[in-house]
């Protein structure tokens, strides 16, 4: 690897790099890492050439399917995933914004039923940059700057 990472290396698992510093805890929440019993190390406010500062998460013995990892696209659109086997990076992936988003974000429409009853939100992603998405229930559009995370 190009240089020694600022948090300790793992033998097998996943490294999620280039997370915006503000998004670190959202990513932890979205990937439900609180419930993960494997060794997890993370760093925040690390130096980054591209982003000035960034966050990084390393999870031992945990590997992610595309659908799983694409959920973080809303908060960390430029995140990169390195799959590690025996200290070697065997695969690099970027996150892709999914076509549909379940949960994660609430509908910005205060009159939407999903804000009243205990309903998992569901959105169709209409565009990527900036992200706009249409609520499956009330059919209103939520924009990137109106998103609140559940």
């Amino acid at each position, binding site marked *: 690897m190009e240089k020694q990472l600022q948090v300790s290396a793992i033998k097998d698992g996943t490294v999620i790099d280039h997370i915006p510093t503000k998004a670190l805890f959202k990513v932890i929440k979205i990937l439900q890492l609180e419930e993960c019993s494997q060794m997890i190390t993370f760093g925040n406010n690390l130096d980054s050439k591209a982003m000035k500062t960034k966050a990084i998460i390393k999870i031992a013995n945990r590997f992610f399917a595309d659908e799983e990892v694409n959920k973080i696209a809303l908060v960390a659109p430029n995140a990169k995933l390195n799959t590690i086997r025996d200290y070697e990076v065997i695969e690099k992936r970027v996150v892709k914004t999914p076509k549909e988003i379940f949960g994660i974000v609430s*509908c910005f*429409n205060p*009159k*939407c*039923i*999903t804000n*009243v*009853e*205990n*309903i998992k939100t569901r959105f169709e992603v209409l565009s990527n940059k900036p992200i706009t998405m249409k*609520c*499956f*229930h*009330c*059919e*209103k*559009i939520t924009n990137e700057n109106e998103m609140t995370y559940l």
Partner: protein
Amino acid sequence: MQTKSLISITDFTKEEYLKIMRLAADFEANPDQNLLQGKVIATLFFEPSTRTRLSFETAINRLGGKIIGFSDSSSSSVSKGETLHDTIKMVSNYADLIIMRHPMEGSARYASEVSNIPVINAGDGANQHPSQTLLDMYSIMKTQGTLDNINLFLVGDLKYGRTVHSLLMAMLQFENPIFNFIAPAELAMPNEYKLLLASKGIKYYEHDEFTDIINAADIIYMTRVQKERFIDPVEYEKVKNIYILRNEMLKGTKENMRILHPLPRINEIHTDVDDNPKAYYFTQAKNGVYARMAIIAHLLNLK
């Protein structure tokens, strides 16, 4: 169990629109058909709407069905704090079809996910009211003989008016529609619809006042311009009398032209229009019963 619901107008295909038109005409010719004999229909009105409820309940009665339900939530278990989820779960065990009106947007879509019987959305807040659109289409079909090549003028509140948006979406399915929008700048047709029309190469024109441009119309669809929609009350005062249709304005209009309005009207159609044979809004309301009979028969696979 696979059931079909009607929550948004775009839930139906063009073929289904045409089937509803055929069935509505059939029910208008033979209104008393006992298709719903032995069936129970739930009309759940979480907020009152006498006009819509009576139209649906007339349709059910004409078809020989039995009705359970409530006409506003204060007389139901909802006032005791029951969730929509639980109300729908319970009722879908009793009835064959749910017709619901609810003040929250998306409530009907959610109900259709929870329910194992079909759901008809009779209005979910400002979102959708698809049976209104189907009766509007039936009125166009009846008066013009076709849904193709219609020059449709939409007038009034084109920003918040859910009926005009749904009608626009439905008419896109037919050949060569032309849209004319007459609205104050503050209540103009939202960009998303204009972009959609442009992307499909469909012609539309925008006007901010009534002139003899209406002479080209096949249908003039009037809506209310409501004071509470304006951020600035001065703006409302400026425009409130511009979008009123008067009998004298109809002189040069086409013979086949008809005036529609989802009702209730306030003052946007002057009463001197009512006796003009081009005034169609009261017949339009009557057409609602036949359109709703058709929707019910279609969703329950009775026809």
